[in-house]
């Protein structure tokens, strides 16, 4: 290699490494932001807790606030982190798998199926009633029946799409169109169930569809994390494959990727994570759709950096939204789904206007 060519090669390599370092710094800064918001969020609530007290409780030097921090606030904070991270990671993965910027946990009708499942549990299985309570206007008689039903119907939607993908060799466009059709079908079913519901059941159904991380206790946080963490690691490990997949099916095959298998596995994992999160915390819109686009605009589209950064930014967005939901009209606590939709829609429109280069 000529000396000059060697110098140019080293220069290109240096620039790329510098760019990669910037993407790593972005990830680390996001992590710091997440820890800061989490600490701040632990101090928010009816009882005044300072950041120092929260830290002391977390490291075990002060046990007087254990109940407030560990039993009440921490599960909520961790639920927001786990759900936000999971939704954002599967959003990023689905956009690549479907090669469509509108890909998200909700594009395939999974959330509509979950909402139908919840309504089915409340009306047909008698799982929900409204009661007056200090903290909530609605109490579910048996929240696990609602969760199981929502999860089961989410899986029905998932498997219809996966079967189509496997046996009919469906293209991403076909999968999206089927998802839209399934979403409409489940919405029709959901509306029909509402029509036959009494006032109490109707309130229960509507309340369930507001995504709310407060519903998650330690066990739910554990279950969501148990699925979100390995799924994120899977997408991270396969990030180069998904990066290649985004260059088109034929190019990906020419680069040695088993496209059908990769797409099927990705869809299966994404749908499962989505179904589980929705069934525990309800419908939380826009996180899965908006976060990957935000991250792409900030650090580019390389999946190896997109997946981990989307994971953290998703957690940041949902946790920040939940913190806003808890404080904006205190003492009334809003369900976080309302805040994410209010924030997400304008943010998405902004990204659409700014993101012309790829859609």
């Amino acid at each position, binding site marked *: 290699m000529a000396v000059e060519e060697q110098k140019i*090669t080293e220069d*290109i390599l240096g620039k790329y490494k510098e760019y990669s370092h910037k993407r790593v710094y972005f990830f680390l800064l996001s992590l710091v932001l997440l820890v800061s918001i989490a600490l701040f969020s632990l101090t928010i609530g009816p009882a005044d807790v300072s950041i120092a007290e929260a830290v002391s409780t977390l490291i075990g030097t002060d046990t007087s606030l254990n109940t407030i921090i560990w039993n009440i606030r921490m599960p909520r904070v961790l639920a927001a982190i786990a759900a936000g991270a999971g939704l954002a990671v599967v959003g990023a993965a689905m956009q*690549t798998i479907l090669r469509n*910027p509108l890909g998200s946990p909700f594009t395939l009708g999974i959330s509509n199926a979950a909402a139908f499942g919840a309504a089915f549990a409340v009306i047909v299985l008698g799982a929900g009633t409204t009661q007056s309570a200090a903290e909530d206007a609605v109490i579910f008689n048996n929240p696990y029946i609602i969760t199981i039903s929502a999860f089961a119907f989410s899986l029905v939607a998932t498997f219809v799409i996966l079967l189509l993908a496997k046996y009919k060799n469906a293209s991403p466009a076909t999968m999206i169109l089927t998802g839209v059709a399934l979403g409409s079908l489940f919405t029709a079913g959901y509306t029909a169930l509402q029509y036959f519901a009494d006032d109490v059941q109707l309130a229960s159904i509507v309340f369930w569809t507001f995504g709310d991380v407060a519903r998650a206790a330690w066990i739910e946080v554990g279950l969501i994390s148990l699925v979100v963490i390995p799924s994120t690691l899977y997408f991270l490990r396969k990030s180069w494959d998904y990066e290649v997949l985004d*260059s088109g099916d034929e*190019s990906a095959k020419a680069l*040695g990727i088993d496209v059908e298998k990769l797409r099927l596995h990705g869809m299966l994992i994404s749908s499962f994570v989505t179904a589980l999160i929705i069934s525990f915390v309800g419908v939380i819109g826009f996180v899965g759709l908006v976060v990957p686009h935000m991250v792409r605009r900030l650090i580019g589209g390389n999946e190896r950096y997109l997946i981990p950064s989307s994971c953290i930014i998703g957690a940041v967005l949902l946790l920040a939204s939940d913190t806003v939901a808890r404080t904006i009209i205190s003492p009334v606590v809003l369900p976080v789904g309302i805040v994410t939709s209010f924030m997400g829609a304008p943010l998405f429109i902004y990204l659409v206007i700014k993101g012309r280069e790829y859609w």
Partner: protein
Amino acid sequence: MKLKINGLQFSYDSTPVLEDVSFGVKKGEMLTIIGPNASGKTTLLKCINDILTPQKGTILIDDESLNDLSMTDIAREIGHVPQAGSKSFPTTVFDTVLMGRKPHGSWKPSEKDLEKVSNTISRLNLEHIAMKNIGEISGGQKQKVLIARALAQNPDILLLDEPTSSLDLKHQLKVLDIVSKQTENGISVVMTMHDLNLAARYSSKILMLKEGNIFAAGDVDVLDPKNIESVFEVKVDVIEKSEGLMIIPEEPVS
């Protein structure tokens, strides 16, 4: 023979596209497949690269059947430059070329992969756009990036599907100069092309396809008025110049 194709047949459902196609390509040879639209050129390239599976026939690389090779093995042997890249989301030129190292890597690129990509970008004079978004560069540059991606695969065979179709004259020559240079390194090139003059100028072998069959094959001399009229249904005049053959279209055969 680096690449050998015997009795290849392919059809989409019941529509035959390739019928009994056989030919070979030696190491360092540059074969151009020409033929009218829908003659099966792109399908043939896709069969060679295992993107499509032929119903009959064998494809051998160094006497080893394509069926005995894994997808990764094939990607290490064959670099493919499609007609146009179709990335859905933004990515840099460097990251695009880096995809070419996937068949050689595991789950993330190694230092060696990064060095190889930097070197390939440098060899193709793409250093000034290395960190640019692929969506921001011109069609000619994009074509060079896709060639760089295929070269990063370190292939023995390079397939190019109409590499000059959307390029201006200068970029057509630049891109084909790059491709031609690869044959000096022992890479065998198979490409499809519509421009007969460029095919005559750069190819060492020509394969003329008509309705899924080989009509004529051999040196550049097969590009004679009679063959061209039979395959393309256009009368032409062929003039021999020092730079090679010059083919001047006259009128379509009625």
